[in-house]
């Protein structure tokens, strides 16, 4: 097993889902059971990516395996020499783990969809799109350059568009698809501009080459401000894809897509891409850029958690919880704890996929009822769904012995250490508060859905446990949400292999632009990239964070039980008492209304105005010119007719007049003529006589 084989397998992994997509698009309707073919490509990919991960992580642990080729050649560019664009893939520990995660989640989602989507008229198309989605995400994960990242980034946008709008007959679905694509594009424009800054300076897209240049002190346009700008602009892409404030509005609407799609989008493919991107550019982030990123992450986590506590649609609660968890990851990257952000990305991928598939199972059982106010008591009807769902909920709430505990605790510890070193206490405060909210709304969801009495008896009667193809994914994801897969010690991730593999990369920005704790002067041992002070502070914060986060999670769970299980406090009364706050939260802080009244209305108004302007003013000038020309020609025609031609006619008239006069003399009578001759002679006589 050498490097080349790993590369070839990875390329195969990327192409396999695409192949499935192409096959299903063209022959999906003609081939019987064509979806099985697509699923098998994903399965092959799963196996092969496991092989790749295994060998990469065990035998080429510290090696960056790169494959690239010249995609576009600019030839001998004047003043620059030979330029071109290389594309390719790179295998490092991060990318192989992410690749495996994508395949795992994608495979379980495929498996789950077999039954869930049964009977849909566009069954094969659905699987085709899933394949395209997986393909796009793999491109993002494995690429070694910004251009390809952007390309697949947009392809993810396309696949999400197709899948969110899969039931395009519904206006809400096609609206949501459109919204998702356009909102993502806003972020993408920023991402693209960020790439442009880098390309304009380094004439390459490849990560390693760009980072190499920056590491040599070769800053974009020789200024640290531009480096910060590049970092923030590229981060804009992540704001869009990972649904960060202020572009988070598309994600809850994206629930219009089929539920397994939500699982895919929210867990491993789309939203993860943003976090992954920030992780990729982590090394070139300046202190200012990191602060911006951390703030955006914290604000997002807070806003969406506050919204999630009042939502009644099971998928929307989960959607806002995703936004909130993504905010955590982004914040974590912003405060410099790269490792925990990535860990949370992976652990979250599994338990969030599980949550969505679990909700899919519930929705399937309830015949497409999504409102939790009409559920309740489903624990008896759907035992397996319930217990797996509970495991995921514990994980997302950060309860020990789950994977979520390890990662969330790490993130909170990271913010605490950051605050201690830099004085930004905002981040840990928000972090812990959100941890409580998370525990609260997740248990609220569990209690309202599975506990208590059935509120809609009719639907409850007909509810039934999902078939095996839907339960196997749920169980396997639940298993993956247990600590053991990440670390043998449920309270310390540093004991695990994950910690060994994922190494926080060393920042390359010049010292004066970076946080001082990010720079390790001594450069002694593995995985100690940060300064020793930071490492020490992190260790100290770790136990504090663990205790604090447990307290917060416990509080959240307690509140949930007090209000919804034991009903010691009435939820309705509470909501009436806090009416303005409740409404504010229930209406999602009025973001949609704000945007549609401002940005959307402005754009549409401007476009209508310009269309009017174009037709009336610009074209009016053109037509006006034509009219003036016509008028001029008309008047000059009149002049020609009256004056110029008049003169000619007048001459003729005068001639005619004289003709009229003189014709009188011509009588035809010889005698008259003779008289004239005689008269003439007489006149002549007198004339000549006088001479």
């Amino acid at each position, binding site marked *: 097993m050498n490097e080349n084989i790993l590369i070839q397998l990875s390329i195969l992994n990327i192409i396999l889902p695409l192949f499935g997509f192409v096959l299903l698009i063209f022959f999906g309707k003609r081939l019987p059971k064509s979806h099985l073919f697509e699923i098998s490509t994903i399965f092959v990919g799963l196996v092969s990516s496991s092989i790749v991960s295994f060998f990469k992580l065990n035998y080429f642990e510290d090696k960056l395996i790169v494959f690239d080729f010249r995609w576009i050649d600019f030839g001998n560019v004047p003043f620059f020499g030979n330029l071109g664009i290389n594309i390719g893939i790179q295998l490092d520990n991060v990318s192989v783990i992410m690749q495996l995660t994508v395949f795992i989640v994608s495979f379980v989602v495929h498996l789950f969809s077999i039954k869930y989507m049964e009977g849909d008229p566009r069954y094969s198309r659905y699987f085709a799109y899933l394949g395209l989605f997986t393909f796009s995400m793999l491109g993002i994960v494995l690429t070694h350059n910004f251009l390809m990242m952007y390309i697949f980034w947009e392809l993810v946008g396309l696949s999400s568009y197709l899948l969110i709008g899969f039931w395009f007959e519904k206006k809400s679905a096609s609206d949501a698809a459109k919204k998702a694509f356009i909102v993502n594009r806003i972020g993408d424009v920023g991402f693209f501009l960020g790439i442009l800054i880098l390309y304009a300076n380094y004439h390459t897209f490849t990560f390693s080459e760009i980072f190499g240049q920056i590491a040599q002190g070769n800053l974009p346009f020789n200024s640290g401000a531009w480096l910060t700008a590049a970092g923030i602009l590229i981060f804009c892409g992540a704001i869009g894809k990972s649904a960060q404030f202020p572009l988070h509005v598309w994600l809850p609407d994206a629930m219009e897509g089929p539920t397994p799609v939500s699982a895919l989008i929210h867990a491993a493919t789309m939203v993860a891409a943003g976090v992954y991107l920030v992780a990729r550019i982590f090394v070139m982030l300046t202190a200012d850029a990191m602060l911006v990123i951390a703030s955006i992450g914290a604000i997002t986590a807070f806003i969406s958690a506050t919204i999630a506590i009042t939502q009644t649609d099971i998928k929307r609660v989960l959607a806002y919880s995703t936004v909130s968890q993504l905010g955590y990851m982004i914040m974590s990257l912003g405060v410099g704890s790269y490792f925990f952000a990535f860990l949370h990305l992976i652990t979250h991928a599994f338990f969030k996929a599980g949550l969505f598939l679990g909700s899919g199972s519930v929705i399937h059982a309830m015949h497409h009822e999504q409102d939790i106010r009409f559920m309740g008591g489903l624990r008896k009807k759907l035992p397996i769904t319930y217990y797996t769902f509970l495991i995921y909920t514990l994980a997302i709430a950060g309860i020990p012995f789950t994977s979520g505990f390890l990662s969330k605790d790490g993130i909170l510890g990271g913010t605490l250490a950051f605050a201690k070193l830099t004085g930004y206490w905002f981040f840990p405060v928000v972090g812990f508060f959100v941890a409580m909210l998370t525990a609260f709304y997740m248990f609220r969801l569990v209690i309202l859905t599975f506990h208590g009495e059935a509120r809609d008896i009719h639907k409850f009667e007909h509810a039934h446990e999902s078939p095996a193809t839907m339960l196997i994914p749920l169980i396997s994801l639940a298993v993956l949400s247990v600590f053991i897969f990440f670390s043998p010690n449920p309270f310390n991730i540093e004991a695990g292999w994950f910690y060994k593999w994922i190494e926080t990369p060393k920042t390359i920005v010049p010292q004066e632009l970076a946080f001082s704790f990010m720079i390790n002067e001594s450069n002694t041992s593995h995985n100690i990239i940060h300064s020793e002070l930071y490492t020490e502070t992190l260790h100290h914060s770790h136990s504090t964070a663990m205790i604090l986060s447990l307290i917060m999670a416990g509080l959240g769970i307690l509140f949930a039980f007090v209000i919804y299980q034991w009903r010691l406090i009435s939820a309705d009364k509470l909501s009436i008492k806090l009416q303005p706050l409740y409404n504010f939260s229930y209406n999602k802080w009025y973001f949609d209304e704000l945007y549609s009244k401002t940005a959307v209305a402005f754009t549409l108004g401007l476009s209508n105005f310009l269309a009017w302007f174009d037709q009336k003013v610009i074209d009016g000038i053109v037509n006006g010119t034509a009219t003036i020309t016509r008028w001029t020609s008309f008047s000059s025609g009149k002049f020609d007719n009256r004056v110029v031609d008049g003169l000619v006619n007048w001459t003729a008239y005068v001639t005619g007049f004289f003709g009229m006069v003189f014709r009188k003399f011509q*009588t035809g009578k*010889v*005698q008259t003529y003779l008289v004239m001759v*005689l008269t003439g002679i007489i006149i002549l006589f007198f004339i000549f006589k006088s001479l």
Partner: protein
Amino acid sequence: MTVGLNHFLALSAVLFSLGIYAVLTRKNAIQVLMGIELILNSANINFIAFAHYGNFGLTGQVISLFVIILAAAEAAIALAIVLNIYKQYSTVNVDEIDGLKE
């Protein structure tokens, strides 16, 4: 009172005037022709008179003879024309014969 050159010339002038008058005023083509004859004869008288009183030899008489012959020929042709005109127009009234107008 002797008859001198002036008397002949006066006679000739009267005859000429009468001839012109006839040519210009008569309606009948024959009368017009007669007028022409008068004019010719007035010319003849002039020739003879100058021949007699002048020193020109026989030239005057000879020319007169020519004129008489010409007048005869002319009368013949003119009458033929008048006849043809009559055939064409059924009239010899020169006022009605205005074909030259066309």
